[in-house]
């Protein structure tokens, strides 16, 4: 039996889809018994219930504490470390939440973290991407040590529902720091599908030429019911907000349909989309590297082709 603790990610009202994907990876560990821990200030029982409904979860641990209101890594890490006594593995998602938190947990437990697990090969053997996904390395965790890892969410399907885990409220006796304080969150445009989890994504690149011109990207996305992303070049040029960046250092996504508009296809961008189902590329430059990975390519001026495409839907 391998006891795996999954750290739930949530926004105070519902579970982030990354949690069900992390559970899916936890289940791939041989003879896994999976628990999920939900941290919050108060009133998070509905989130715990949501976690308890995930298939294959055996226990949900609910930790309510006023200090947990803002999910600060420095505050959560000592509590997870205390819980880890009862577990062989501690898994979190490779989202900014998990990337911030899990190495802090690993260090407190005295182990290296396995970042971005793509597959479980054996109980202590995993595959993960390095060099912006240009190489895949098989890593083996040392015997007799806990395994702390982040899970590359684009590599794992979400587990289904229908679970009926028990929910156990716990108080954790750990000294919590006050040296870190949450100030606020400036969330981007939230009325569109979430880029990280959307089934369809339309992204724009530098060829759009301005933030205003992104309106044709939004119009197409609206017709497709898609989230909107961007290349790093478009973000750096100030056309759109940083949370729309897709790629090695932005979001790694795996939508069913990805439409790249005016994106040349730098390797750092391709890293973020290589798990997409179907990639469509529209670009004026027929030599652009995006066409090497596109399933359907159209060499055309985006300012005429995209509105035409939108009208055809």
């Amino acid at each position, binding site marked *: 039996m391998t006891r795996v603790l999954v750290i739930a990610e949530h926004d105070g009202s519902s579970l982030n889809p990354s949690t069900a994907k992390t559970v899916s990876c936890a289940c791939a560990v041989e003879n896994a018994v999976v628990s999920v821990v939900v941290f919050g200030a108060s009133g998070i029982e509905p989130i715990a219930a949501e976690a308890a409904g995930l298939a294959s979860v055996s226990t949900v641990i609910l930790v309510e504490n006023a200090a947990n209101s803002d999910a600060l890594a420095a505050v959560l890490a000592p509590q997870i470390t205390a819980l880890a006594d009862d577990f062989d593995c501690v898994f979190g998602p490779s989202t900014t939440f998990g990337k911030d938190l899990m190495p*802090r947990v690993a260090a407190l437990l005295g*182990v290296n973290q396995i*970042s*971005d697990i793509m597959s479980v090969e054996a109980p202590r053997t995993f595959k993960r991407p390095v060099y912006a996904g240009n190489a*895949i390395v098989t890593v083996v965790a040392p015997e007799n040590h806990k395994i702390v890892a982040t899970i590359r969410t684009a590599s794992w399907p979400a587990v289904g529902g229908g679970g009926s885990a028990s929910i156990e409220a716990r108080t954790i006796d750990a000294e919590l720091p006050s*040296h870190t304080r949450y100030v606020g*969150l400036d969330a981007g445009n939230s009325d569109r599908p979430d880029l990280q989890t959307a089934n369809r994504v339309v992204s724009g690149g530098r060829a759009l030429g301005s933030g205003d011109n992104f309106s044709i990207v939004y119009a197409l996305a609206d017709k497709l019911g898609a989230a909107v992303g961007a290349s790093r070049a478009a973000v750096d040029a100030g056309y759109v907000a*940083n949370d729309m960046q897709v790629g090695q250092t932005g979001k790694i996504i795996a939508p069913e349909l990805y439409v790249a508009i005016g994106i040349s296809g730098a390797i750092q961008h391709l890293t973020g989309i290589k798990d997409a189902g179907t990639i469509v590329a529209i670009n004026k430059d027929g030599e652009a590297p995006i066409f090497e990975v596109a399933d359907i390519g*159209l060499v055309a001026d985006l300012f005429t082709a995209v509105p035409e495409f939108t009208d055809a839907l």
Partner: protein
Amino acid sequence: MNRIVVGLKRAVDYNVRVRVRKDGTGVETDGVKMSINPFDEIALEEALRMRERGDASEVIVVSIGSPDAQQQLRTGLAMGADRAILVTADGMPDPLDRARVFLEIVRREEPDLVILGKQAIDDDNNQTGQMLAALWGRPQATFASKIVLEGQTATVTREVDAGLETIAVDLPAVITTDLRLNEPRYVKLPDIMKAKKKPLDTVALDDLGIERSPALVQQRFESPPVRQKGIMVNDVAGLVAALKSKGLI
């Protein structure tokens, strides 16, 4: 504030198209251009700007790895760092060992701030800064896109999935950089000459007296699966037809 410690990792240059060695032992590094990890360059730039504003008195750059990392430290000195420390080690130490080395540097130098890149573009681990903060028992502000210093507090804007989060941390603290924090300066020739006279101390990792962590074994490297080349369509009508045939619209 007095000192800032900045980590500079020697990594394969951003523009190199990395290839896996045929025997699966790693990636090709023979004759490959090596540079400062881009996130670390941003970390140094931020530290230099703080010193130039009078918020810090000294900037120390630190690299852990092969003796060749001297080149990257010299570049860091040419950019404007005051002195450099090279911690030599065989191979690529794991992030926890790196964090323990930084902790030892912190004990010796007593900085108010340690600024590191959020990840290195070779192993893409994204761990060392968070681990150092944990071992040191101090705050971490990861993925920073803006830092405001006021007395003994840093207010840091962080690039998170949901947008831009702001946190306030007491100093000393560890900050890791994201791409949009700043644009690093170019090194000028006279600065390269001047940098040759700046102090660069070398110490072996094994002489620092730190406990080594249980290592992760890198068993085998392989190339990622290649996506099949798709079809080209001539016009929007062709695109719509292709998507329809796949049942996507």
